[in-house]
């Protein structure tokens, strides 16, 4: 019986291995010596590993990593501040025009990033927001805000009305009800929204490459992109930067698996 159970695991292991091979390869290359990179038959394992890629990253990309972290955290803050109250209003404060707003939020998610980038570029040029961290934060937040509102609305609709009425009877105003009752109960959806907005901002390439490419400190995605353009021979350093830029995703996967699955589903199907 036990062997029969494990029989299913074997093909699954193979599928996973195939799927994750590029990720493995990135790690492998990041430890490969420059002199071995150009071999026509690359080593399958880091034979004679080197840290030269990582030393290069640490000496050149630290400011980029810091910039990305700042942009990610800023985007989380903007997204939560805008999306959480709106989700509450849509879920619990009976409003006219809710349908229209929901429609707008769904449509917003369909707009191509490159179109948004052009609009932002035109506006930022006049306002002097080009190449500034707040500018990128605002642009990046547009990826997460509609998603956040829809997710908060879905979750908060499920909170029992009795709770909110009880708070009202106790004399709590709407703001107080929101802050002391609804928000603490919505902790899980706040984690999901934060994780996604951080990850999207951290990974963003389009906004960073259009609105911040001339900045003194560029986000790490642009750091890698410039690296690819300038040092085509130094693939170990490029891959080392890629490995380090993937760390937030790795952490996310380990600590927040169920939030990730919840987020993907919420983005696709509302119920």
């Amino acid at each position, binding site marked *: 019986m036990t062997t029969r*159970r494990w029989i*299913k695991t074997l*093909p*699954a*292991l193979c*599928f*996973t291995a195939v*799927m*994750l091979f*590029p*990720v493995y*390869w*990135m790690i492998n*290359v990041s430890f490969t010596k420059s002199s071995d990179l*150009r071999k*026509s*038959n690359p080593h399958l394992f880091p034979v004679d590993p080197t840290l030269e890629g990582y030393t290069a990253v640490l000496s050149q990309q630290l400011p980029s990593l810091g910039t990305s972290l700042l942009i990610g955290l800023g985007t989380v803050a903007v997204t939560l501040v*805008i999306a959480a*109250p*709106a989700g509450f209003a849509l879920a619990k*404060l*009976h409003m006219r025009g809710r349908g229209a*707003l929901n429609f707008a939020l*769904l*449509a*917003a998610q*369909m*707009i*191509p990033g*490159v*179109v*948004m*980038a*052009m*609009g*932002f570029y*035109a*506006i930022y*040029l006049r306002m002097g927001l080009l190449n500034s961290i707040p500018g990128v934060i605002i642009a990046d937040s547009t990826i997460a805000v509609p998603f956040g*509102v829809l997710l908060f609305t879905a979750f908060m609709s499920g909170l029992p009305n009795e709770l909110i009425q009880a708070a009202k009877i106790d004399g709590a*105003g*709407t703001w107080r009800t929101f802050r002391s009752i609804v928000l603490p109960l919505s902790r899980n959806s706040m984690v999901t929204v934060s994780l996604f907005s951080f990850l999207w901002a*951290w990974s963003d*390439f*389009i906004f960073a490459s*259009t609105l911040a490419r001339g900045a003194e400190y560029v986000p790490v995605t642009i750091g*890698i992109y410039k690296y*690819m353009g300038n040092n085509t021979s130094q693939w170990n350093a*490029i891959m080392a930067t*890629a490995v380090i*830029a*993937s760390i937030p*995703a*790795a952490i*996310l*996967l380990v600590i927040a698996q169920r939030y990730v699955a919840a987020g*993907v*589903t919420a983005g*696709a*199907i509302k119920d």
Partner: protein
Amino acid sequence: MTTERWAAIGFLAPLIAYLVAFYIFPLYRNIELSLHDYTPVAFVTGNARFVGFDNFIDMFTSRTFSTALRNTVLFTLISIAFQFTIGLGLAVYFRKVFPLSRLLRALFLVPWLLPLIVSGSTWAWLLNSESGIVNAALRMLGMDPVNWLVSPDTALTSVIIANIWLGIPFNLVVLYSGLQNIPGDVYEAALVDGASAWRTFWSVTLPLLKPVAAITLLLGFVYTLKVVDIIWIMTAGGPGDSSTTFATWSYREAFGTGNPEFSPAAAVGNVLILIALTMGAIYLRTQRRMDAS
């Protein structure tokens, strides 16, 4: 007006202001760009000549147009066909509980969570003509190496392969959660009736999964249509126009060269919005029908 109404307005006001300032205004600027002739100088001073639909006519008559159209259709349809089929196959497979199934399923999410620049540069190196592992494998099998990214014949195939890889996790997760919602007793009934696994899949799983599958496909379409990063990072739409889609075409005109052509870029972008919103409308209709049933 009751205090509750005022409160609701207060709670929604930031969102509405946000949507107006950071969605509607950029979109308005984009339409305006596409109807004027903006040179970089006019961009700063703000007085560009109104040219009506000239930018759109230029776009439709451009040499790039037919290539971009063909590439966009191929890129979207082939990517989605493979992502969906592989994702569905894996979702059905992972529905059975076996040792390590949860862990392995979680690991499948990795490609989707990585920044696109990471996946793009990794694939660029995997497919590198001289030192890439893919060509090394082909050589080992006695086949000729392929100039994946630098040959006009294979550039589009290369970005499609990478994009399929990127899209599998999303399809897997959404379809898997759709499968979880199919009640177990339907399967028991099929088992009692002596249906084979294949028959069960066609007559039970697939029909019950249809609503979720429809939404997965539509969302996949909308997302794939606007892909810029992965193509730009791997081939920048080249060589020539061989891997240029509408999205990368628009990006190249506006930001890809030292000489920004915002007006033509905005025209291409507006066509892209129209396609995306049409698909969006279909998405909403599908979802409404799902809610009704």
